[in-house]
């Protein structure tokens, strides 16, 4: 009488035993990465370097005659007209115009200091957009104009 071998059956059983947890893990990893990848917003940073100490006391020094100070005044226009950008008393009508004008000026002189004088009611989004345009034009010095301490702190 011949007895049927069970070696083959064992091998089949072992194969199925090792495959199942592997598939399990692969599915778990898949689910994990899908969960992590969705709803992920990449936040970046737009750095700025502030002057230290009593910043308001740092007056702008007279520059060389060929270096022109670029003063950008940001304020809210009448009604819903949005933010107005005034560059050295010249009103720029749109942000692309601000960007192109800054680029043209930077091509002439990157050393020109840029002063951002922002009014209180201007939204941060517009401030960042103008600051980004200044950085994009590769100006060497971009400063935010601050109030005098006497006005704010009663000194």
């Amino acid at each position, binding site marked *: *009488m011949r*007895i049927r071998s069970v070696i083959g059956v064992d091998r089949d059983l072992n194969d199925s*035993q*090792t495959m199942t*947890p*592997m598939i*399990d*893990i692969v599915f*778990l*990893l898949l689910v*994990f990465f899908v*969960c*992590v990848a969705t709803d992920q*917003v*990449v*936040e*970046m*940073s*737009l*750095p*700025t*370097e*502030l*002057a*230290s*100490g*009593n*910043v*308001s006391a740092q007056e702008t020094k007279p520059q060389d005659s060929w270096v022109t100070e670029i003063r950008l005044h*940001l304020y809210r226009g009448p009604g819903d007209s949005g933010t107005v950008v005034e560059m050295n008393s010249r009103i720029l009508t749109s942000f*692309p115009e601000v960007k192109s004008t800054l680029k043209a000026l930077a091509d002439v002189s990157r050393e020109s200091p840029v002063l951002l004088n*922002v*009014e*209180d*009611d*201007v*939204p*941060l*989004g517009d*401030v*960042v*957009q103008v*600051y*980004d345009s200044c*950085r*994009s034009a590769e100006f060497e010095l971009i400063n*935010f104009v*601050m*109030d005098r301490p006497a006005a*704010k702190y009663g000194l």
Partner: protein
Amino acid sequence: MKPATAPRSRSLRFAITPMIDIVFLLIIFFLVATHFVKSETLEPVELPEASQAEDPEASTPHRMTITIREDGSYILNGRTLEWLELESILLQVEKPREKDAQLEVRLRGDARTEYRFIKPILEACAKANLTKVGFTVLPGGGE
């Protein structure tokens, strides 16, 4: 007649597969938990866009993130603060002990927040010699 049977091997092998399974499960659990804890502290705000944005991880590891909501309220470490509280924190903040290490103040401001709520932070940072300040932005805004 009783057929001869092969001796059944009863080896007590260490089952590594379920252990790996459990280890992976634990890793996934902690990763997901960390992700949710991190997300919880980040107040959802509509960030401005900038083309010159840099990788935030490339800068200093010492960082303080202040979220400024549209209504002008300040959030630091998940706590909503009044301006005077935040100002005193900024003025008394402990600088990193490592040589050349600088503390960066990251401003996560809503794009609609008025500048009146940002300016005092910049002034306080300058007074406290915290010169490294960054605006949190979304990449884009190229045109």
